[in-house]
């Protein structure tokens, strides 16, 4: 039945693909295309008048908007630190919980649990922990760490964000790493042991290369989560103190919805998209190259 398409086939194609494609086009494709257009305008989001301003938004951003680049620098530092720590924590938890522990199923649930709560509520929970919980522990034990001004100071707020991120995301990556570790061929490990490799050598030279596909996915997820951070940022620090923990997403949001400069916000959103696309494709290309066949 290779001849010409029958009416039934057209109907089939239409009812099966059109709904998904139409919703996707309306909500993602069209807005994405419009991003390119609005970034060259001075639209305020309310009026129907959208005036073309050429490259003015980009000039404005690159020449005068140091806050935008501060938010980029914060987001980049936050992303680097949390991607490394989250992956490390997730991997170590996975190593621990692939051991024959009696409590491992329960513990997997425990470590995963923060992940099911949205970033906004998690941020509020930790807001309380940093403001009241830590100082209570600090007063009881006298340990200086707990008495730091956690949300009141630029450098400790940065680490506050990192701590909550690791607590939230490590469990998710742990699940991915556990899957990779349990699918790993056991004979290779045995062979390495017989050949006299130390556990660290086995881990670094055998285990890590074998689970590279999981590393690719985990790095990709962690990078895109951290780069897009908004909810957690909003409920934990609101970008403060003095915008020192303002993420790019929050900067774009404020430009559009607080200052009503939709054109300028869209230009920032476009720059943001380009940066995220470049970074994630570089990361995937690099880690894919290191994947090996067992």
């Amino acid at each position, binding site marked *: 039945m290779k001849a010409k398409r029958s009416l039934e086939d057209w109907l089939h194609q239409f009812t099966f693909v059109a*709904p998904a494609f139409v919703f996707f086009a309306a909500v993602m494709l069209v807005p*994405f295309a419009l991003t390119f257009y609005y970034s060259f305008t001075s639209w305020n989001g309310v009026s129907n008048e959208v005036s073309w301003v050429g490259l003015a938004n980009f000039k404005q951003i690159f020449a005068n908007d140091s806050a935008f680049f501060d938010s980029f620098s914060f987001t980049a530092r936050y992303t680097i630190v949390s991607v490394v720590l989250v992956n490390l924590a997730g991997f170590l938890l996975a190593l621990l919980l692939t051991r*024959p522990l009696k409590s491992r199923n329960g*513990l997997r649930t425990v470590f995963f*649990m923060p992940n099911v709560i949205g970033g906004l509520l998690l941020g509020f929970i930790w807001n309380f922990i940093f403001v*009241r919980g830590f100082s209570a522990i600090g007063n009881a034990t006298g340990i200086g760490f707990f008495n730091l001004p956690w949300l009141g100071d630029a450098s400790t707020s940065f680490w506050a964000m990192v701590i909550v991120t690791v607590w939230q995301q490590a469990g998710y990556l742990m699940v*991915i790493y556990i899957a990779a570790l349990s699918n790993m061929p056991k004979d290779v490990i045995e062979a390495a042991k017989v050949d006299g490799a130390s556990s660290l050598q086995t881990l670094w030279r055998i285990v890590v290369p074998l689970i590279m596909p999981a590393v690719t996915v985990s790095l990709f997820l962690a990078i895109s989560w951290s780069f897009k951070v908004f909810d957690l940022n909003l409920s934990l620090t609101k970008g403060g103190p003095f915008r020192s923990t303002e993420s790019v*997403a929050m900067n774009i949001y404020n430009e559009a919805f607080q200052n009503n400069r939709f054109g300028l916000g869209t230009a920032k959103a476009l720059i943001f998209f380009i940066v995220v696309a470049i970074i994630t494709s570089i990361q995937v290309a690099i880690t894919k190259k290191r994947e090996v066949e067992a």
Partner: protein
Amino acid sequence: MEQRYTGRTFALEVFAIVLGLLFLVPFYFVLSNSFKPFSELLSHTVALPSAPTLDNYQRAWEIMKFPRAFMNSLIITVVSIVGLTVISSMAAYRMVRYPSGFNRLAFGLFVAAMVIPFQSIMIPLVSVAKEFGLFGSRTGLIICYFGFGVPLSVFLYHGFVKSIPLEIEESARVDGCSKFGVYWRIVFPLLKPMTVTIALLNSLWIWNDFLLPSIVLGLKPETRTIPLATYSFFGQYTKQWDLALAGLVLGVTPIIIFFLSLQKHIIEGITAGSVKG
């Protein structure tokens, strides 16, 4: 290969349990303090409540208009999940079985769209939503979830449909089943494991989402979801931790119950959903 339970394993077990308890400390703080009157919360933050009270919960329940927020979240999540499951599985099936030029292009677009951060398109989305009259309504929000959920859902179904042998469909056709019948009676039931995965991943995302509903719905009490209700509650009662904590526990409880009752499937779903990339 189960190893023997040695002394070293026992030490690791103790270490892991201590780590697990540390992980739960934030929940302990929030939960125990939500049952204390404000003055006790300030003076005895670490201790268990001396005389647990439900006052905070009663007031938070009313201020947040909790039942309404809960119903809004539930309706939006359930309708979005059902719709996404139907449209994504059908599209993925057609794309695998009839790979025309358009279907290949559309699938390529779905895959490419997965790297677009939401914040990059949220601003023009506002004008599109206004144009289509999607603003301020739950229906509008659900339509947005259809659009944003399609790429990943189609992508995951696509991989799964490929693993279903074509012979079953062919024999059903020979026996006189219609093309539509083949899909609904034969293929869709076979997709069930992937459907469960996709439904669970999407429900965690949609239930917890804050940014999209705040843009599309605003903070009106009638339509707001649990994250939106929690957000406006916190704005009002920032320093009143007794109320705020009770509100937080209310907001977190439904999703925790959901997770604990389905945790096995959720964890399997994460594994199935992430092994491809």
